[in-house]
């Protein structure tokens, strides 16, 4: 197992380095001139040149990348357009000249919202997806199975901005069943936090649960016919207990993988959901950075999202290896 963990971690790190290089290249491939964008529309060419120098854009590409990586690992000092020098702590993801703030700090401000949204949505997704998948598999081919499959298909086929507005209109504005979506730090007021996030959780979780429900249904159906499940029954285990202990274990692998991907993707920012419900998370931050041609912020957000995906996919792999000892061999 130890060798598996080491191998997997090394892989994850290699992927991150590759992504950081790609994101950095993106910075230069973008049609906008970072210095002009940072300086603003009213700058003359002399000012832009000064900004370019202060941003280090006159340096060779490799040197800039090394600076960037050094910043990520150890932090560095960065000159703002106005000439002041700011120390950017590790992990330093560059400096947003638009916000006059290190990108990592700006991201950190938006992360709690995204964390809250992701955690709740994943919980909804798990309960809904696994629940319907399990019941569907147990009642395979019967009416319950067909009803549930149809229900999850609705989730998969409806766009989140549409469902989000409808749900908000019905549950908040017309009936007042739920409070208006908003973010309150859970440390301040847990009830307000949960209340404000409930609708986004439900909508985001429901829309994403369809794939999960379908996968868990097919996985469980396949595993149900495994001979070790029959052995479990022949040992004297009841049907439900045999399925809970053996079938679900056998079906878990791909589900855990999917969950890892889903978690990583959501933590990278749920742009549409955040926009629909007016939540100020990483997704909206990234969208605004793109709109404002704030390239350092865009690169930072991309890198952060990549980190989350790589991290959670690696975690999922480790979980799968823990669940199924045969995986550790390959």
């Amino acid at each position, binding site marked *: 197992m130890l060798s598996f963990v080491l191998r997997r971690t090394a892989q994850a790190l290699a992927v991150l380095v590759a992504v950081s290089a790609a994101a950095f290249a993106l910075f230069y491939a973008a049609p906008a001139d970072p210095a002009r964008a940072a300086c603003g529309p009213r700058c003359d060419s002399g000012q832009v040149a000064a900004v370019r120098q202060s941003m280090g854009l006159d340096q060779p590409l490799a040197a800039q990348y090394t600076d960037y990586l050094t910043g990520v690992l150890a932090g560095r000092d960065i000159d703002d357009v106005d000439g002041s020098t700011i120390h950017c702590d590790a992990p330093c993801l560059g400096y947003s000249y638009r916000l006059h703030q290190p990108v990592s700090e700006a991201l950190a401000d938006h992360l709690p919202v995204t964390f809250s949204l992701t955690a709740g949505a994943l919980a909804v997704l798990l309960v809904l997806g696994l629940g319907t998948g399990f019941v569907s598999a147990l009642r395979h081919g019967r009416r319950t199975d067909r009803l549930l499959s149809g229900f999850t298909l609705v989730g998969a086929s409806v766009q989140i901005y549409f469902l989000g507005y409808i749900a908000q209109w019905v549950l908040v504005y017309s009936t007042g069943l739920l409070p208006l979506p908003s973010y309150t730090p859970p440390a301040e007021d847990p009830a307000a936090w949960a209340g404000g996030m409930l609708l986004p959780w439900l909508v985001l979780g429901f829309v994403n649960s369809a794939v999960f429900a379908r996968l868990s249904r097919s996985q469980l159906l396949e595993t149900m016919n495994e*001979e*070790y499940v*029959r052995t*479990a029954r*022949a*040992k*004297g*285990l*009841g049907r439900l207990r045999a399925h809970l202990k053996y079938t679900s274990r056998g079906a878990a692998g791909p589900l855990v993988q999917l969950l890892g991907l889903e978690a990583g993707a959501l933590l990278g920012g749920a742009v549409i959901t955040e926009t629909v419900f007016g939540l100020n998370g990483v997704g909206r931050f990234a969208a605004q950075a793109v709109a404002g041609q704030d390239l350092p912020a865009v690169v930072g957000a991309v890198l952060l999202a990549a980190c989350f995906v790589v991290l959670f996919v690696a975690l999922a792999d480790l979980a799968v290896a823990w669940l199924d000892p*045969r995986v550790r061999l390959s």
Partner: protein
Amino acid sequence: MKTDVPGDRVSVPRTDGAEPVLSVRDLTVTFADPRGGAPVTAVRDLSFDLAAGEVLGLVGESGSGKSTVGLAVLGLHDPRTTTVTGSIRLGGQELVGAGESALREIRGGRAALVFQDALTSLSPFHGVGAQLAEMYRLHHPGATRAEARRRAAEMLDRVGIPADRVRDHPHRFSGGMRQRVMIAMALMNDPRLLIADEPTTALDARVQRQVLDLLGELQREHGTAVLLVSHDLGVVAGTTDRTLVLRGGVRVESAPTAELLAAPREPYTRALVGAALRLDSAPGTALPTVDDPSPARTFRPRVVERPERWLVEVDDLTVHFPGRRRFPGLRAEPVRAVEGVGLRIAPGETVGLVGESGSGKSTTSRVLAGLQRPTSGRVSYDGQDVTNPDRELRRRLSREIQLVFQDPYASLNPRRTVAQTLDTPLRLHTPLTAPERRERAVELLEQVGLDAGHLHRYPHEFSGGQRQRIGIARALAPQPRLIIADEPVSALDVSVQAQVLNLLMELRERLAVAFLFVSHDLAVVRHFCDRVAVMHRGRLVESTDRDRLFGAPHTEYTRGLLAAVH
């Protein structure tokens, strides 16, 4: 109490007149077709008794309903699709129609099951000790975890699994050890009845013998009654007191095993017994089959002379596979699948390649077929070096060397009809036009005992034996000079195996094609092959004429192999 079971030739002696452990009367099991077709009756009006300490063999071909009986005893069929009628009494308790909670107590408690394939039947996610401990705790609700673990370790020790391997997962054990774990688990709660469903079919002969011996020992120790379900009369012969033959879910006959094997009364049983090859049957003769219990056909005696030019020459063949790295950065130790093997096949000759699983026999045959590149060594076909074939040679090899695989279910494309399957090699390797190819396809089917009516059917519409015939027809299509058959009859029932062997012997005589016949089954090899090469752990142990090998084996290893055949 005297039990009268219709069809029994002798009344079975009962020890002290006690009630039988298992008493089955008029058992009928019917499966509903989920697609709404006619229901299928798997077992019909079956009655038998099993006394304490007795071993009863339940024998039949696939589809005879023999496994259904075992599952019905434990009520393991899906009640939504299965109807079970009649009576199954275990120690006097009626099980047909019994409630789920009563059945749960019986399963694994008073009656336990051993399944065929321990690799798939044991949970891959739990250590073997934990799986045994669970069995114990399920039926000893008061037992502590520690107590269950201790009992599990004791039981594993009894079947020869050392204490330091109790926590290992099933995939870390060999096939024989896994099956021993399975048996230990079944006997965990000292059941009165053990149902063993093909317990050794997946194992090599030597390991099979060991496992059967262990099963017999434990059975005598515990006084357990055993229902041994098998298609293999050889297994039944050495292990059971009585044998019941099933066909199509109906009893054919039942008698003490020795009597049944020595003087089978029913033609069907005679065919089964005759089809089961032994090391003392006459090699190369037409085998009795269910349709033709006393075949009249004879084959010419085989004469293979030392040729001017060998069809296949293999010298010093070595194949290594990259091994698994134990730690990142460390060098991996290669898996030495084949080490320095030499082999000759004359035109028209049949050479048997024998060995246990993992001996390298399949890898060797894959090199000959051009499916595996050798690490080193010389392989030539008809005088030409084939280790690095150019385009033209590759084309010639793919025409002149054909393959027949073990699993007729997996080796035919389920989405292509027989006509399409046979058409491809003809289109690739012959100049025939479409109508000519069609004609040739019919001819090929007739050669293997099928007919034009089968052309437009899909593989799933055929039985296992018929599918293997289609596989053979496909191999014959480009008129090959060498057929590499990798365990071609191992997945088949004995009677079907006999049919396919008859077919191969007939084709060999008619077409003068050479065979490399890879098999772990010595009796089959002895019957079919002219010369035999024995492999063990990647090396060639012995290679000589059939009669010399079976009459006077040179090596200890070969003698051991021969001794394990019943």
